[in-house]
Structures are given as structure tokens and as C-alpha cells.
């Protein structure tokens, strides 16, 4: 499904962040159609919600009594696989070269268009895996409000991890802790849960600022 933005990027040079953002609405409406139509749960009157997954199709829990499910292991595995692809395989070398300097990569004979396509398809697959894990591990059925902005949070996580596939694990745990912690704090002591957004925003801003400042040298006059 990411073929559209990937082709737009490679043929016309349209920025992929913009096109995928716009594709969000198309797909949300498509999912909405599915939930109102073919996938609609016949048992739930009027509520746009798919039928529940069969128990066999669900991801089992890692530990009984906790909500932690095998999707977590899947995510760790995905991070590891991406890291291996990035550092050990030819495709990873090509992806990094194209990402850092497409002009030099193209000059050196790396098939830039094909690499962008492959990277986009890989990312799309990973995003799909995340959605599957959320439905099969936690929710049990597909609803329209499946993702409370996971995509955007993903951008923050990736930036906090300085785009390192293994750093992403730590950054994701950090961000998750803040969000979950803010929820329970607001329930327990009435701290507004917006505090989580503020913390995350400042973490990101400080990070970006810190990266900028590392480019300068401190000196005393």
C-alpha cells in the first residue's frame, strides 16, 4: 500500500512524509468503510467494530495475569532484525547510503529508486506488524480508534533513538513509561495527563538542541 507514496517519491520527488500523512485519511476512511460494511460485527448493533478474532488467532500472553503479550517479543525481534539488515546486509548498506546522500549513492551506481521502494515496503510491513500485534495481542477486534497517534509517537521515538534500530527499544520503553505513568498518575493523584505530552515534547526539543550544540566547540576567551 506504500507503493503509491514510494512511486510519487521516486518519480516526482514528492516528500514521503507529506504523502503518507495524506494517505492516512484515505486509509482511515477505507477502514471505516470496512468496519461499517464487510467486516462489521453482526453481534454489535450500530457500533463500527469488527467481529472478535478467533481465540486461536490471538497472540498469547507472555505472563499470566499481565497484559504483556507476544507482540512485545515480536517488536524486540523486529528491532533486532532491522539492526542486522542495516549493518550486515547489502540492502542495509544501500539503504543507509541512499538515506545519507542519494546523489553520491546514485553516482556510485546504487539503484536509488529500487532501494527507496524496498525501504518503503519494509517500513510498511513493519507498521502492519505493529497493527496486527495491537489487534491480536490486546484489543481482540479491529476498531477505528485502534491507533491513538502511534505513528506520530513513532517519529518521536525514532528521533530520540537517533535513528538507531536498537536505541529505538530504549526510547520506546521510555516514551511508553511516560504515557502509561501519566495515565495512572492522573487517576491516582489527579495530575493532568497532558504532562506526558509536555515531557515528551521537551525531551525531543532538548535532544534536537543537544544534537545541534554538539556541532559547536566550547571555548573560553
Amino acid at each position, binding site marked *: 500500500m506504500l507503493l503509491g507514496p514510494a512511486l510519487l517519491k521516486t518519480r516526482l520527488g514528492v516528500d514521503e512524509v507529506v504523502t503518507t500523512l495524506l494517505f492516512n485519511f484515505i486509509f482511515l476512511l477505507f477502514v471505516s468503510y470496512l468496519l461499517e460494511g464487510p467486516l462489521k460485527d453482526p453481534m454489535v448493533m450500530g457500533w463500527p467494530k469488527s467481529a472478535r478474532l478467533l481465540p486461536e488467532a490471538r497472540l498469547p500472553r507472555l505472563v499470566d495475569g499481565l497484559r504483556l503479550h507476544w507482540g512485545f517479543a515480536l517488536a524486540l525481534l523486529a528491532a533486532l532484525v532491522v539492526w542486522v539488515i542495516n549493518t*550486515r*546486509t*547489502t*540492502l*542495509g*548498506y*544501500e539503504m*543507509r*547510503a541512499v538515506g*545519507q*546522500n542519494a*546523489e*553520491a*549513492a*546514485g*553516482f*556510485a*551506481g*546504487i*539503484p536509488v529508486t529500487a532501494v527507496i521502494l524496498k525501504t518503503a515496503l519494509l517500513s510498511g510491513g513493519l507498521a502492519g506488524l505493529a497493527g496486527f500485534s495491537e489487534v491480536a495481542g490486546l484489543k481482540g477486534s479491529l476498531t477505528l480508534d485502534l491507533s491513538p497517534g502511534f505513528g506520530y509517537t513513532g517519529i518521536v521515538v525514532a528521533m530520540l533513538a537517533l535513528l538507531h534500530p536498537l536505541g529505538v527499544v530504549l526510547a520506546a520503553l521510555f516514551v511508553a513509561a511516560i504515557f502509561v505513568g501519566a495515565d495512572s498518575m492522573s487517576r491516582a493523584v489527579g495530575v493532568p495527563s497532558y504532562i506526558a505530552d509536555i515531557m515528551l515534547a521537551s525531551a525531543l526539543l532538548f535532544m534536537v538542541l543537544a544534537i545541534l550544540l554538539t556541532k559547536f*566547540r566550547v*571555548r573560553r576567551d
Partner: protein
Amino acid sequence: MSKNPEAQVVLRLQGITKRFGPVTANEDVSFDLHRGEVIALLGENGAGKTTLMNFLFGQYTADAGSVTLFGQPLPPGAPRAALDAGVGMVHQHFTLADNLAVWENIVLGVDHLSGLSLRPREVKARIRALSAQFHLKVDPNAKVARLTVGERQRVEILKALYRDAKILILDEPTAVLTPQEAEALFATLREAIATGLSVIFISHKLHEVMAISHRVLVLRHGRLVAERATEQTDRAELAALMVGAEVSSPKIEARAAGAALLSLRAVSTPDHGAAPGLKSLSLELAAGQITGLAGVSGNGQAALSDLISGLISPAQGEMLLADEAPGRWSPRTAIASGIARIPEDRHKTGTIADFDLTENAMLETYASRFSRRGWMDWARARAFTKELIKGYDVRCPGPDIRIRLLSGGNMQKLILGRVLEETPQIILANQPVRGLDIGAVNYVHAELARARDRGAAVLLISEDLDEIMQLSDVIHVISEGRLSPGFARGTMRPDELGAWMAGHGFDAEAPDAA
């Protein structure tokens, strides 16, 4: 030319020292500039010439030392002070607004364009008077976007003169000029010093320094290592002073041509914005020869280079490799066909700044030599890079550091090694020594000559006519996408080539197909 020792000192630098961390940019530099005098600041890239001038304009403050202008101390770190006192600088990269007319550019920053006090007619009259006096021919009403590089430089000089500059600093002014334009610039400078201006001429071209200056100051590693009256020195001595040792540029002897390894037959390519494409261009690169391509930048060199690199294909005409048409033309096909490509911009096109040396060394051959069934063979790649570092004298801490930390010369040596290790049959060298110091320049030239001697066909694209004339067996001139006939080594004088560079001679030769 000789200077009057009694002449008034207009600028005095005393004990200027500047360090950036552990790097010393300038150390204890002192000199005087007199009224009506031209001094040349000579030095390799990175010798500290430009840094020194930046003190005058307040970009940097010196760690020690002082600057005195017309007897007054110059306050450090005040960009306007030098301008107001009458120092004008013409930078290597012009600072003109393309969308404004010449006269508007000249008054920009002096008068307010929208101010009521501005009288365009008087401004233009003054500009015309200045142009006439200093032989700086340019139309005040022309839009800067339409001007040639030489004309733009004249506008920059006019701008300084319009502001009543008493001291003119020219940073590598001839880098972008044809020999004729450079000669005209010198005529202007002679006119200027006759009226009492003083000039600091920054350059690394020895013959120009000899032609225009009264005194030569040689900078090396930030220190003023020598001061010579131009009359009492020669090019050999200055070159030796510049690098701190006797330099021997590689001796290159003419050779007979072998078979044509690459032929272009009436090839045309589309224009690319302001850069012209090729206009029915025919060219043969013969084995065992260096073919030099002279020309002012932006005359189709980029299109030719892109074509041979595999980035573009001919729109019309054909390209043959050893008399055969190649398959689908791409950078990968070009590399596979034995074409070594040294790109014009080693930072943007030749390397990936944040990749380490290993990752950069294998950029063109990773698929064929360093990967097996989709997995990278890093051990082999690292070993290969270590050999390149040794074999091509790349000065660096090791193969694992990012290439952005290397100097231009060492970066270029790595690129050179990367492509020459494949023993290419055809070598495209686009501005291979731009921005390098003399040591690295000689190294690159010697390697190109060596490749030629073992039978490779070399195409050398350069804006530096000296380089072309020194290295090439055959010289072509490119102008607006058209190619001059080939001139054998030693049959043309620089000014004759300069006429071709300026576009003369092509129409007489015009092929029937226009």
C-alpha cells in the same frame, strides 16, 4: 613596477595570531601595505590567507596582535569598521542579488533603494564614469542574472570603487576568468593603483602573482615565511617557499594516440536550467592519451561529465565504447565498462560524509566484490581499505573514521584509489585537483599520467588552463556545449585557447547541422 618606500602606510598588521583549538590559523603575522601598492598573499589552500583577511572584516577577533588602518587602530569584531574606513573585498563567491539590476546591486547597502534621496540617474552616471575610468565595461541597467561570471566580478569591483574603497582585497579573483578576462582585470588593477588605491591580491597562481604584484608575501601553515620584492624573485623560488620544499611537478611527455576507447558522435543532451547541454558534440578518447577539456565553468562540462559517468544518456547522437554501443546506460554500466569517474564535487557526489572510509571505499564495488548472497563482507572491505590507505598515501587515523574528518586532498586520494584499483580503461577526471594543496596536486597528476602510460584514455576536465596545458596530449575547448577541434600538445598559446574559451572560432567551424 617598483614601489616608493616613502609611500604612506595605509594598512598595518602586527603580530596577528589566531588559534582554533589545537589548530593555528595564523601565527605572528605582520606586514604593511602602502598607498598605490599591490601585494600578493601567496599560499596553498589552508595556509591562512582568507582567515587573515577575515580579521579586517570583523568575522574573527585575533588572539593577539592589532590592525591599523590609515593610522587608526581597527576595533576588533566590528564588521562595518573596515568597510567604512574604505576597505573593499571581492570574494571568491560573489555576493550579488541575481534579480536586481547592476546599479541596484552597487548601491545596495550604501543607499536605501526605496529612499527618497536615491537618484537613479545620478547613480548610473557615476557608475558609468567609474566603468570608463577603470575599464570595467558593464551596463548599469542589466539584470545581474544575465551577466557572465567575468561581468559579475566587474560589478563586485565597481561596488567597492563606488564606496570609495582605498584598499581592494581580491580573493582568488582569476579562478573563474578566461586568460583574456584575467588580463583585463590586471589592466583595471593597474589603473586603480595609478589613482592611489592599494590592492591585496590573494592567489596561488604564481604567474599572476608575478605579473601584477610589487611584493609577494608567502604564507605557510599560518606563518609569514617569506617576503620578496616581485622583481627579485621567480616562480620556482615562490613555489618552493609556498610548500617549504623544492617541488617537482610530474614531467609529462607527449605520446602517440592508441585506439579510440570512447567515442561520442554528434551527441546532444538537453540543457539543465542555466547549464547548457551538449550541442552535437563529437569527441574521441584515445588509449594512452590525456585529453584535456578547457573551458569556463558552466559551458557544458557538467553535461559531458554526467554523460560519461552514466547519469544521463545522449538525447541525439551515439556514444560508443571501443566501437560498441553499451547496453542500458547507467552509472553501474559505466563502472562495469571500466570507466573510472572522479567527480567534480568530492563532498556531495564522490563521498558520503558520515560514512567511514571503508564504507566510502567500497561505494562503487560493494555489490561485485564485497557482498555474498546479500550479506556484506566487512572484513574484506576493511582489508581492502587499509591497502588503499597505504597504497595511495591517505593520511588518516584508520579505516573506521568518518570521511568528513579528512582533508580534501586525502579524500581525493581515497577516491582516486577506489577507482584506480579497478585498473580502468577510461578515466574521467572532473576538476580532480580543485582546492588541493600542491603536494596533493602533484600526486593526483602523477597518478593520472601513470594510468595514461599503461594505456588508459584519460579525459581531464578543468577550468585551470595551466593544468590542462601541463598534462594534456590533446586539448579541446568547450563553449556553450560545443567542442573545438583537438589541438596537439604545445601547438596553442594560452591566449589562443582563451579566444576559443570566450566562444570565438566556433561559428567558422559550424557543422552543417545547426
